[in-house]
């Protein structure tokens, strides 16, 4: 089975090379035969890679430790679900998984466009197959899950216990789906540059792909934060770790892209900027994979330990060089068709939003690579930690929050000052009152006060938008309020779905602001029966116990969570010692409510029977996860197909076969 997988990868690499070259020449020579042949080759690549993935799954589930991809990521005692999920564990397996998802996307794109976008498609095929070929080269020359170990080890190294968590099973595929889906809009952008068809055709065609990529990346990041919160046991969910930073970067530039393409679609503006943004987003997706896979995070010197980093660096150079070269070549054809109708317009808020987002992305990128650069040049590693990222990004986040409230109220093209005043008065007043109430309640943290007041302001503007839209619809139709609200959203899913996404972002911001500013934590050592206070709560340590299971040994404690003299929850913070590989982990006990999370971490159970705990009170953390769900709901609304619109179907451009 391993041989089939190995040759599947080799053959897929060969056919991807053929598909890339044949489609390029087919496009240049306008040869339908070559183009059709390269399209078939792209489908063949998908089939061969799927065969390789099935082969890898088979050897993973049957514990065949003679293969590198199994021995390094799994072991006999690993539960069945985690064995299956080892497909995206470890380096070699995840490279195969990455390219497999890309080939699936490739098949979908080729099928979707079998009768559309004929001038662009050959070059789209070239870019997608070129990207796939890069991964096949990595798999063939750098790291392959089907390489045979001799002698075969009796058992595998297993999966890091910290990663044995349901969130970790779905988090990497979500991130990968996001990273990889950006390849599609990027491929269309490059095809637009090559063919000189620089209208908004490429943007319209890939709108759903961009939204899907963006949503998957957003969800992937949130799942990562959720996993860190529950598994890593430091009371937080985001530590500005390089791995986290590189996964948020394409999401930020992608957010800028999704906003600025609207200006090109509506006004024919920002053509160069949109191309630059999609190039940045795709390059950052590859950069993210490079940073995580090349080992440079731990040290620049780890880079030299395998040739993977070198391949990545060359590929990144090629992508950036070719993209910029094409962009400069076509610069004269990329003039804007229009200018802003008015400074007081939604267009101008989009421009500001873009500047802020790209500024945020640059600061995070710089903070992430600076330690690597300093180590490479001076030999000493400078640490850039959360204080830097927070100092730069908190004001940026606050400005974005402000724009979230201002943008929707301003009309496209031209807003009148009178109407602005009318629509802003209530939200400003409510934001101000919210600030005053919070101040009266004792909130003195400047940024938290500002963020929460702005949250109230944004919430009011968005609710106001839905209210005004519903009222306007009721005036022109005979619908009831509920029906008008539903139809309003249905008829303009992009606008109102977008507002729902904004609501989700407000919830996430509120959760981040409150939990960062008002987190209460204390470390205490308690004897059995003793209590410690935490905010309104009392925590009573009752006793400790031990439990032995096949994979790990658990030391647990019984803690009674009390409020007003009553027990409201029995909690079990614990520590585990995994046997293979031997790793200690903390099992955090969390009681989550909409208001706050009580978060208990067991430090140690001491010889005299006492136990050392760290207690955290994290306000509004649940709103981060709820905000994530709202964000997904909003995106789903945006990408839903149009309801039976009476539009004439676009004329098809099928190929005609004579014989």
């Amino acid at each position: 089975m391993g041989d089939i997988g190995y040759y599947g990868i080799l053959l897929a690499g060969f056919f991807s090379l053929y598909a890339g070259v044949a489609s390029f020449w087919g496009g240049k020579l306008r040869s339908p035969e070559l183009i059709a042949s390269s399209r078939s080759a792209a489908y063949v690549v998908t089939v061969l890679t799927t065969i390789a993935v099935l082969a890898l799954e088979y050897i993973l589930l049957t514990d065949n430790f003679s293969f590198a991809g199994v021995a390094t990521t799994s072991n006999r005692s690993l539960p069945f679900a985690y064995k299956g999920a080892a497909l995206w564990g470890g380096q070699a397996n995840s490279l195969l998984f990455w390219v497999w998802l890309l080939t699936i996307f490739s098949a979908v794109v080729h099928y979707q466009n079998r009768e559309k976008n004929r001038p662009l498609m050959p070059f789209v095929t070239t870019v997608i197959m070129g990207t796939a070929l890069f991964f096949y080269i990595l798999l063939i020359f750098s790291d392959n899950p089907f390489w045979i170990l001799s002698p075969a080890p009796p058992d595998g190294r297993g999966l890091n216990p910290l990663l044995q968590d349901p969130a970790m099973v779905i988090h990497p595929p979500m991130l990968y789906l996001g990273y990889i889906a950006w390849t599609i809009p990027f491929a269309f952008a490059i095809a637009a540059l090559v063919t000189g068809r620089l209208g908004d055709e490429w943007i319209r065609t890939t709108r759903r792909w961009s939204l899907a990529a963006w949503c998957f990346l957003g969800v992937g990041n949130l799942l990562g934060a959720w996993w860190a919160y529950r598994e890593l046991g430091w009371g937080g969910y985001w530590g500005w770790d390089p791995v986290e930073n590189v996964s948020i970067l394409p999401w930020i530039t992608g957010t800028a892209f999704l906003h600025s393409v609207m200006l090109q679609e509506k006004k024919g503006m920002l053509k160069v900027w949109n191309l630059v943004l999609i190039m940045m987003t795709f390059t950052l997706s590859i950069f993210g994979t490079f940073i995580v896979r090349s080992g440079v995070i731990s040290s620049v010197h780890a880079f030299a330990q395998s040739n993977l980093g070198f391949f990545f660096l060359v590929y990144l150079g090629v992508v950036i060089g070719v993209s910029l070269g094409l962009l400069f070549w076509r610069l004269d054809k990329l003039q804007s068709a229009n200018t802003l109708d008015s400074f007081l317009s939604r267009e101008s808020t989009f421009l500001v939003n873009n500047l802020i987002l790209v500024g945020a992305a640059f600061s995070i990128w710089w903070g992430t690579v600076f330690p690597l650069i300093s180590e490479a040049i001076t030999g000493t590693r400078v640490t850039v930690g959360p204080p830097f990222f927070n100092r730069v990004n908190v004001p940026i986040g606050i400005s974005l929050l402000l724009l979230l409230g201002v943008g929707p109220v301003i009309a496209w093209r031209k807003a009148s000052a009178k109407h602005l005043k009318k629509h802003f008065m209530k939200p400003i007043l409510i934001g101000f009152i919210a600030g005053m109430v919070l101040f009266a309640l004792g909130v003195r943290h400047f940024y938290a006060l500002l963020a929460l007041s702005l949250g109230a302001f944004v919430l009011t503007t968005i609710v106001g938008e839905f209210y005004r839209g519903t009222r306007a619809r009721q005036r022109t139709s005979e619908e009831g309020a509920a029906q008008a609200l539903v139809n309003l959203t249905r008829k303009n899913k992009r606008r109102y779905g977008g507002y729902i996404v904004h609501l989700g972002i407000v919830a996430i911001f509120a959760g981040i602001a409150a939990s960062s500013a008002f987190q209460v934590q204390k470390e205490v050592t308690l004897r059995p029966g003793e209590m410690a206070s935490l905010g309104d709560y009392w925590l009573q340590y009752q006793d400790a116990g031990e439990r032995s299971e096949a994979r790990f040994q658990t030391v647990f404690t019984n803690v009674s969570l009390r409020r007003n003299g009553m027990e409201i929850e029995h909690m079990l913070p614990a520590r585990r010692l995994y046997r293979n590989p031997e790793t200690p982990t903390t099992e955090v006990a969390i009681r989550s409510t909409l208001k706050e999370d009580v978060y208990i971490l067991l430090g140690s159970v001491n010889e005299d029977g006492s136990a050392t705990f760290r207690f955290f009170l994290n306000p509004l953390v649940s709103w981060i996860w709820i905000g994530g769900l709202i964000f997904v709901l909003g995106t789903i609304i945006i990408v839903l197909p149009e309801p039976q619109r009476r539009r004439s179907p676009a004329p098809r451009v099928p190929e005609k076969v004579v014989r």
Partner: protein
Amino acid sequence: MTVLLIALMGLGGLAAVLYPLRRHYEKDESWEFRLQLQELVATKETLYSTLKELDFDRVSGKLSEEDFRQLEARYRARAIEVLKAIDALKEEAPEDDEELAIAIEREILALRTKLEAPPPPSQPEADPEPSCPGCGCPIRTADNFCPHCGADLTPPSK
């Protein structure tokens, strides 16, 4: 068995790739025109949705009547340009492609109907502070006569 399967994978792939090379595709004279029509239809759709949004912004009180009229005229002018471009395509397209001719006619008819439709009526109720057309003083929507100059405010009967 494994060798056989691997050979099948390679040869199957090769067959799928070589087969299209042996087919002969008809030279399609009109595909450039179809592409142009596709692009024009897409531009038309964008203009439609822009006009719809403008109207909605006006009804929901975000855009003043004056600004609306000005912007609406601008985007209608662009729609007329698209109509002209589709018309020009009709002249240039190969005559024997019936499917293309029908598609062009359909688009021209749809655009003409849209452009000849009367512009939406102005909406005085969208203005939060209605004023007397005679003296410009603020009035209430329920007033039949202006309390300041006495002008008749009842709408003319149809």
